[in-house]
């Protein structure tokens, strides 16, 4: 079948103008949108720029806006994006576009880093593993699935207008440790998220939950952090 991709192109080295380019490629319905992009890049226009690494939905490099929704190009099949019409492909919103589909991820990673996304403990290191019951492990299982693709954060309308907001992904990253029984940095993280630009900025729009390619219940995680702020401190 023939699929038309309508791709948003931007190259500041040539022009500050944004243009939409259409390419028609022949694909199988079960091919991925990423395959179609590859076909364009490898066979039609080598200057098309996008990120991808594993191409199998694990690394989280190729989040983009496909037909107006944030998805991983490598997890989206051509037949699922209404291929009878031109399929629009844009970079994710809310982060500075560097070129074509590539955005500057630094503000996103900065927000994640400020959550202390590592195990915080006090006292001497134990001589063996820090054991945890299956039940305690299950408590934060959902938020361990995050691959930092930024699909959630860049689908959040609050993040679009307020670059200071930590965004859903950072809260998911914090949630993963806040509810980890082995971690002792909960108070610090809750303190950071109690900030003016923390969890209270969330309007429960649920865009993040819909966008997450890993099926993480992002909005629920944010609400759980709010609850922890109210009842745990």
């Amino acid at each position, binding site marked *: 079948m023939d699929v038309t991709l309508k791709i948003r192109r931007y190259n500041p080295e040539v022009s500050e103008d944004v243009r939409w380019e259409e390419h028609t490629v022949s694909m199988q319905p079960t091919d991925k949108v990423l395959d179609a992009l590859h076909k364009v890049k490898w066979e039609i226009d080598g200057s098309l720029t996008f990120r991808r690494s594993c191409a199998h939905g694990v690394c989280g490099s190729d989040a983009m806006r496909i037909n107006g929704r944030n998805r991983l190009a490598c997890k989206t099949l051509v037949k699922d994006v209404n291929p009878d019409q031109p399929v629009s492909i844009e970079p994710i919103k809310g982060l500075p576009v560097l070129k074509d589909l590539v955005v500057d991820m630094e503000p996103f990673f900065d927000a994640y880093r400020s959550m202390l996304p590592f195990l915080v403990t006090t*006292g001497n290191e134990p001589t063996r593993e820090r054991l945890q019951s299956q039940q305690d492990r299950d408590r934060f299982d959902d938020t361990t699935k995050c691959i930092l693709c930024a699909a959630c954060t860049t689908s959040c309308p609050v993040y679009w207008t307020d670059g200071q907001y930590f965004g859903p992904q950072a809260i998911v990253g914090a949630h993963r440790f806040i509810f980890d029984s082995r971690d002792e940095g909960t108070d610090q993280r809750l303190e950071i998220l109690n900030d003016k630009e*923390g969890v*209270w900025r969330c309007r429960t729009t649920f865009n993040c939950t819909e966008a997450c390619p890993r099926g993480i219940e992002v909005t629920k995680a944010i609400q759980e952090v709010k609850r922890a702020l109210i009842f745990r401190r």
Partner: protein
Amino acid sequence: MATPQVLAPRTPRKARSNFEQNSWLFMRFSGVLLVVLVLGHLFINLMRGEGIHAIDFAFVAGKWTNPFWQTWDLMMLWLAELHGVNGLRTIINDYAERDTTRFWLKSLLYLSAVFVLVLGTLVIFTFDPCLDPASTLDVCQK
């Protein structure tokens, strides 16, 4: 000798502010209270007895001679105003992109809130249906 343990965090913390948390909680609690207050208000004024035809200066004045209704209306005024202002505040925070726009919109908002609250409170406690000496209302014919 054992290595001395330094407890985290080592950087001085800035003064803790729970303002956003409190305003979030306020929205929930005032919302629940307002459902009762507003529906009760509508029922008493519009449905009970003669309903809407009973409402005039005298009806309002009669209600406000009773401290119960004074308190009811005062709570409704303050909760509704603050609930609405807080909602608008978050909307301005969400959508005003420039700091100066945000500052002026919020200043305007807070000013209007103070005006409504002061005026409303004043009226609830000082309402006099017979302020006009030529009033023809029954309550003023003495």
